[in-house]
């Protein structure tokens, strides 16, 4: 084994970078080499260390034991109840023969030993999450997963803490409070660990939270930088390095000037979705949420930097580019969906792009070096806009669908959850297809109803969602970003609210809200296998190689989230406008599934 002094060998640059933070030169060298060894082995590495498995957010497993010809033999290896009834959106994390599951509120972390038969709980960690946080979370009390790096587990709690645990023992190493539930802030996203920094964003854009992304030192939990999504350039970390592609983004302090006075202070733009990282370009990518809490007519302007994608330097947080998918958002089209980093041959040239399926219904192919939109095609039925102007990057709104008090607006497509919500897609470098779990919903604002919040009565628009004209509420779609077309699509009765997984065996996996875990042929979408779980699936399926060398497929069942709150929150199906109108289109879900978190793990016999 090559363990020597740093100077003079191929690892020198890595080690000298590490030396800035520590005096222990020898240990750092060893750590760097182990890291490199893992990188070299990465092509067939069997772990699943972060929610999307890799920095590019592909959710692609390089394991190929399970194939279209044998997947019908998949059988349950083990299951495990989390004993919690809320929506389970998390991806299980697998590292070093252990699986780590973070639950919805109260955000327990459970470590399962995978080395023996059955399930052995190594440790459970209870962060004592403040129960008041439940009263603040908008839609359900979900958590989208933990992250593993360098022997530590990092996760977020609904009451705005990021916590680091020793992965072996479950001992708390540090915890940092990042926000205030009294201001409506919560945290539901899965953190990403990049270059020794834990990246975390907030939730709560509906009611006047100012959005941010924060970097914490992974060693100590100390705040390194915070980049706000609204306000003066110095708060947004916009400086000399900022080179947005489009002219409308190139001016001073647009995070102030594109709002009425003071409105940016409570302007939304939270960062509750996904973060990707390109080590070559050294850029992180993430989307910001909708503006709030004013009605569109009371916040004239583009409302920057909400509903758009930022590229930033992980070390400093400095913004490098920004692209706004929905300027002056009218329909709750957050840009928080995933950015999948892939290299494509477009027009004979290899381009470094990011694929971004947005709530507004368009699948964007964006040059991830510059922020230039190369294409944007609708992947669902869209009536709220006429397309994306590639010369300016602007979404061309349909004025007939602008919401206004006293006006009836029908056929608003896609509905507020968008053509696709948080549920992350998967990319296969083998098929070169993006696998999209999504929904086909429209909504009507046809009436006004009396609402009541914090002692204040008012009349709000009553939005009721319904299936789009094609009639099916959910779909699992394979999209070719080069020819810019849907290759195939599988209709589902309910919105497909789970994540997607695709493997080197060319099998794609997803779950349905009525509790079917499905395997389909990644090439043509043929259904190959399915398994009925005890509760609907809104979690993120993963694949890992167990200590026995075998390929495993794992997913958390446990229905809930915005779409499934009708079950996990026992909502009244007679009230169509509950859960911001989602209940109207989910009235048959309670008869199709029950609540309750359960981990399912499968393998071949």
């Amino acid at each position, binding site marked *: 084994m090559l363990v020597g002094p740093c100077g003079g060998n191929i690892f020198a640059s890595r080690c000298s970078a590490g030396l800035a933070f520590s005096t222990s030169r020898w240990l750092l060298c060893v750590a760097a080499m182990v890291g490199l060894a893992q990188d070299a082995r990465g092509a067939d590495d069997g772990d699943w260390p972060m929610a999307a498995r890799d920095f590019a957010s592909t959710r692609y497993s390089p394991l190929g034991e399970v194939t279209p010809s044998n997947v019908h033999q998949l059988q349950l290896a083990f299951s495990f109840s989390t004993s919690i009834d809320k929506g389970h959106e998390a991806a299980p994390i697998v590292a070093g023969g252990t699986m780590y599951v973070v639950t919805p509120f109260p955000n327990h972390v459970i470590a399962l030993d995978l080395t023996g038969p059955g399930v052995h709980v190594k440790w459970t960690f209870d962060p004592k999450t403040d129960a008041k946080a439940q009263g603040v979370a908008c839609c359900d009390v979900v958590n989208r997963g933990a992250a593993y790096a360098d022997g530590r587990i990092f996760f977020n709690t609904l009451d705005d803490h990021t916590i680091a645990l020793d992965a072996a023992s479950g001992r708390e190493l540090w915890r940092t409070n990042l926000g205030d539930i009294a201001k409506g802030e919560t945290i539901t996203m899965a953190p990403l660990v990049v270059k020794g920094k834990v990246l975390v964003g907030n939730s709560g854009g509906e009611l006047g939270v100012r959005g941010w992304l924060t970097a914490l030192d992974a060693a100590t939990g100390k705040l390194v930088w915070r980049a706000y999504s609204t306000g003066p350039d110095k708060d947004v970390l916009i400086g000399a390095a900022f080179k947005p592609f489009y002219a409308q983004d190139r001016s001073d302090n647009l995070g102030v000037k594109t709002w*009425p006075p003071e409105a940016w202070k409570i302007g939304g733009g939270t960062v509750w979705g996904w973060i990707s990282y390109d080590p070559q370009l050294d850029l992180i990518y993430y989307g910001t949420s*909708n503006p709030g*809490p004013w009605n569109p007519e009371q916040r004239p302007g583009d409302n920057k930097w909400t509903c758009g994608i930022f590229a930033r330097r992980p070390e400093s947080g400095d913004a490098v580019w920004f692209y706004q998918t929905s300027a002056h958002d009218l329909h709750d089209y957050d840009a928080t969906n995933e950015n999948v980093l892939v290299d494509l041959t477009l027009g004979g040239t290899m381009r470094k792009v990011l694929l971004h399926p947005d709530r507004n219904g368009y699948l964007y192919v964006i040059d991830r070096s510059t922020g230039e939109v190369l294409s944007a095609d609708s992947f669902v039925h869209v009536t709220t806009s006429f397309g994306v102007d590639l010369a300016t990057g602007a979404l061309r709104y349909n004025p007939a669908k602008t919401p206004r*008090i006293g006006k009836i607006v029908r056929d608003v497509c896609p509905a507020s959850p968008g053509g696709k919500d948080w549920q992350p897609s998967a990319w296969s470098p083998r098929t070169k297809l993006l696998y999209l779990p999504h929904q086909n919903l429209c909504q009507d604002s046809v009436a006004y109803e009396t609402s*009541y919040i914090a002692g*204040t009565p*008012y009349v709000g628009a009553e939005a009721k969602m319904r299936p789009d004209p094609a009639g099916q509420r959910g779909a699992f779609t394979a999209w070719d970003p080069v020819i810019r077309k849907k290759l195939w699509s599988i209709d589902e009765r309910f919105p497909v609210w789970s994540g997607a997984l695709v493997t080197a065996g060319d099998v794609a996996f997803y779950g349905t809200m009525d509790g079917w875990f499905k395997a389909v042929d990644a090439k043509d979408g043929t259904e190959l296998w399915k398994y009925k779980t005890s509760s609907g699936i809104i979690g993120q399926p993963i694949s890992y190689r167990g200590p026995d060398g075998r390929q495993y497929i794992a997913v958390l069942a446990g229905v809930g989230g915005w779409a499934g709150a009708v079950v996990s929150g026992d909502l009244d199906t007679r009230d169509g406008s509950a859960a911001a109108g989602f209940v109207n289109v989910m009235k048959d879900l309670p008869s199709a599934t029950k609540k309750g978190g359960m981990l399912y793990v499968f393998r071949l016999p």
Partner: protein
Amino acid sequence: MSFVSHSAWVVAAIACAASAAPARELRVCADPDNLPFSNRDEAGFENRVAQVVADEMGAVLRYEWLPLRRGFVRKTMDSGSCDVFIGVPKDFERVLTTRPYYRSSYVFVDGRAAHGVDRFDDERLRRLRIGVQLVGNDLAATPAGHALAMSGCVDNVRGYTIYGDGPASQRMIAAVADGAIDVAVLWGPQAGYFVARSVSPLELRTARPLPAMKGVPFEFDISMGVRRGDVALHDELDAILERRRADIDAILAQYAVPRVDQPRGDIQ
């Protein structure tokens, strides 16, 4: 037998008797920090009204505390943790509402300069700094927010969110009192209570809707709310509200709730 053991027996007997016939409970969902309606110290007028109702029922009053924010019905009454909201709009569809026991209105509050504005089409509004309550997005503004937008007032309007230190209404009245804003438009019961406690004199006037704002009311009837289908409790509360009307009116007057359903309580 010692005296001590004898008294212990008596205590035990009382405890047994109590457990054999448990007292009826009135389970109320309320916000722990939302004066003038309710707080954990039970100092709000809804706390006082709840006590009147519990006394009339011969029930023990018990609270389930949760901020009345998005999802509060789902998280309280729908999850079975309580049976009654003391104050909700009569037309609030999420619950079964009783007969209204008061009606109030959105009001203008202004301070030392006393501009006397009570209409949204008053030209002076465009030059004044105006505060409104912010309750959410997706066309979920207060009637005042919609009226100001229709009047073209944008840059001079400041929003007060439901999150912050103390109720938004309290922060708004303080802002008028110290001159940070010129006028506030807010829901009557909140305005009445904090205006009455303001150190500097403030004026309060009923807000008249814009003629163009059809279908957006500025006045609301307030009822108690029970679970949909709980007709027995609904009917019982209706009867109690009638029997104890005078006591409830006295509480509302004590908290300076501006009423538009009583000639003597009309707002100037």
